[in-house]
């Protein structure tokens, strides 16, 4: 094959390139900046990071370790750990960044690290490279792998709700629950805020895997009233969910609700939970008050072989969750199911037995080796304004109790509820269901209301008018001593010079009168310790109306344990359950140690 001449001449064209300026990047004399998205070394905003460890989990190279950092201030919702990257493992795929729930982790434009020491490739992002803050390149804004939006809960329409006491929240269906559960990262940070430290990541993971029964079993491990909590828990866990920094937390409560609701009756609960009940150990414990705390204590004591007797003053178990929570939040059959299950494994409840009246405290003490008091706060605070005793001025707690007993209470068509807690909102929403127009008067701002946000929103949806910064001055009565109107003054918020929360101050002269038929007071309750014998009362350490207890919920009297509202400040069911649960450990320790 002969060579063609063109093919010999034309290559020499290349020599022309000698005149061109070389396009060489003259590194290191001239540097080329990495691209705006370059995936270089990690940077972690130490303050933003909550140590959830998702980066460490998602890393397929096992390159990220969670380690303790000296001198790190750890707030709530923070595991106290921070990621450390082994650059001898990392592949800079940035999966960790894209799955960081808080967005604290990012990659930077820096990529240069050369060393003769192979052990020097461990990097604590953010601490070893604080200047990375300004070199961030790969961030997960809006491109995250995670879903920051929770599956919305289906509810009855506001107008529909006020027509009856039907349950407002409809619950997740299976698909919604699986999807919502799948959002969970399983870090377990939330358990820190749960008083009873329920195994939240475990049961959510079980739901995500489609194993609802296992989820129920895990829930019942330290909470016998899971379904109640699934409906009405104050869910402090969700406040510190890893997702809260940038989005909506996992619907932990609704998932618990979903899992427990899949169980139809107490037989099935027993089947699923399949508790190991120890043989009777011959010890006996009394529990005063069948509230959530008392029932919890009773359940776990019974499982541990104790002979448990619960004394309940009313005709139904459940305490506040029975009488204080309206039925549109917690239907009766749901509660019955749970209580029947407790009874079925050996919890004995003596109804209509008020200690101090039907049976003396001393008698209880004689029959039992330890006593757990969980009587709750039953006595409402008085408003302390004139006209409070008039007919038509009632207390929310009593009002709710009577309504839950399905008794009829005449409240007329214009109701004012005073207070901003959950009880106040419950009273207001119940009143709406009875057909009244409802106004809530609250001393402070809406954002200061201790009630749950969802509750406040729910109330507003149902047409409850919330009037914040309004301080009631006087209840005006008519000649029959019946409530006619309420006089209140608007208030302004005065910042606290000590740095506490602002205080309301009445604006002089800004007074209004609102015509009402009923005034419902809901500014708090306290306990009634009158049933306790004097000698015990003397020995018992009581601080601001609450019994002082130690970690095991043991009072200053060793055989006496206490929990619930009378011992903690949380004023919710899960707090009481935690007290009951912990008291079991205390009681066990106390009695069995005595044994030895």
């Amino acid at each position, binding site marked *: 094959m002969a060579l063609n001449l063109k093919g010999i001449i034309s290559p020499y064209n290349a020599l022309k390139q000698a005149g061109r300026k070389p396009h060489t990047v003259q590194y290191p004399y001239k540097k080329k900046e990495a691209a705006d998205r370059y995936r270089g070394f990690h940077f972690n905003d130490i303050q933003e990071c909550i140590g959830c460890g998702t980066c460490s989990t998602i890393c397929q190279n*096992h390159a990220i370790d969670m380690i303790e950092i000296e001198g790190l201030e750890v707030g709530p919702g923070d595991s106290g750990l921070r990621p450390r990257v082994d650059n001898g493992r990392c592949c*800079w795929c940035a999966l960790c960044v894209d799955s960081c729930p808080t967005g604290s982790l990012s990659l930077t434009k820096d990529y240069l690290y050369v060393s003769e020491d*192979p052990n020097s*490739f461990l990097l604590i992002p953010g601490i070893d490279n604080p200047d990375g803050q300004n070199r961030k390149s790969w961030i997960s804004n809006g491109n995250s792998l995670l879903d920051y939006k929770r599956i919305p809960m289906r509810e009855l329409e506001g107008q529909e709700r006020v027509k009856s006491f039907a349950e407002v929240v409809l619950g997740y269906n299976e698909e919604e629950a699986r999807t919502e559960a799948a959002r969970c990262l399983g870090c377990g940070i939330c358990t820190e805020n749960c008083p009873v430290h329920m195994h939240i990541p475990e049961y959510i993971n079980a739901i995500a895997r489609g194993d609802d029964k296992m989820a129920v079993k895990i829930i019942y491990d330290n909470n016998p009233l899971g379904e109640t909590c699934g409906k009405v828990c104050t869910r402090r866990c969700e406040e510190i969910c890893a997702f809260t920094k940038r989005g909506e937390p996992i619907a932990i409560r609704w998932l618990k609700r979903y899992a427990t609701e899949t169980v139809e009756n107490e037989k099935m609960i027993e089947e699923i939970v399949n508790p190991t009940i120890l043989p009777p150990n011959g010890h006996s414990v009394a529990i005063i008050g069948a509230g959530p705390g008392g029932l919890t204590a009773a359940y776990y004591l019974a499982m541990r072989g104790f002979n448990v007797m619960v004394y309940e003053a009313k005709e139904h178990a459940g305490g506040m969750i029975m009488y204080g929570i309206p039925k549109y939040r917690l239907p009766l059959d749901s509660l019955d199911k749970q209580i029947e299950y407790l009874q079925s494994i050996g919890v004995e409840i003596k109804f209509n037995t008020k200690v101090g009246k039907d049976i003396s405290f001393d008698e209880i003490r004689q029959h039992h080796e330890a006593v757990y008091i969980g009587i709750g706060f039953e006595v409402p605070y008085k408003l302390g304004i004139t006209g409070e005793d008039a007919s038509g001025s009632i207390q929310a707690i009593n009002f709710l109790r009577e309504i839950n007993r399905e008794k009829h209470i005449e409240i007329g068509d214009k109701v004012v509820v005073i207070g901003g807690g959950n009880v106040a909102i419950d009273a207001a929403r119940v009143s709406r269901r009875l057909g009244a127009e409802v106004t809530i008067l609250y001393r402070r701002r809406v954002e200061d209301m201790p009630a749950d946000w969802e509750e406040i929103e729910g109330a507003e949806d149902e047409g409850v008018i919330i009037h914040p910064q309004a301080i009631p001055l006087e209840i005006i009565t008519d000649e029959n001593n019946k409530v006619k109107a309420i006089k209140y003054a608007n208030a302004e918020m005065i910042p606290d010079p000590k740095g506490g929360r602002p205080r309301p101050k009445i604006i002089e002269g800004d007074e209004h009168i609102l015509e009402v038929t009923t005034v419902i007071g809901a500014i708090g309750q306290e306990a009634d310790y009158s049933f306790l014998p004097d000698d015990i009362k003397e020995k018992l350490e009581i601080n601001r109306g609450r019994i002082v207890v130690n970690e095991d919920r043991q009072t200053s009297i060793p055989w006496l344990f206490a929990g619930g509202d009378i011992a903690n400040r949380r004023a919710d069911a899960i707090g009481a359950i935690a007290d009951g649960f912990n008291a079991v450990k205390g009681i066990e320790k106390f009695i069995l140690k005595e044994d030895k």
Partner: protein
Amino acid sequence: MIYDKSSGKIVDIIKNYARKHSLWIVAYGTGCGAIELPPTMTSRYDAERFGIRGSATPRQADVLLITGYLAVKTLKRVIRTYEQMQDPKYVIGFGSCTINGGMYWDSYNTVKALDRYLPVDVYINGCMPRPEAVISGFIELQKLIEAGKANGAKKYKENLDWYRENQRKVIKNWKMPDYNW
């Protein structure tokens, strides 16, 4: 044989200067890092500016670039290649996998820590390291050479037994001539 700069002999200074500016890489793409070598060696980053160039056979080379993970099967050849190289010789660990296994940390067929098997003078971080990083690695190596600190080969000779033990542990069938050159 390492010539300490502090010896002050003019010969040593010249030798180290020449060594520093003439680094021949044995052309052995042991892993995926080999893909960043063409850009490094060609017109865009032009490593030849530093006297870095490829060399076809280990006999002529100064630098063994371990471009990433080493499969056990390759390790055997790499050891052979390394031992054929003439003193002074240097090893550069290129990429994360040479440091602690990288993304193949759980693979049954790659060794994780290169310095157990070969004396590494410089590690370059990255997966994979950019050409700039590769050049930085060489600059670091040059600094070490000038300071007379790049003494991996000496370390290898002195601790040959230890290296052999590690090598034999992963290479099941050791059919290689012993290190005698």
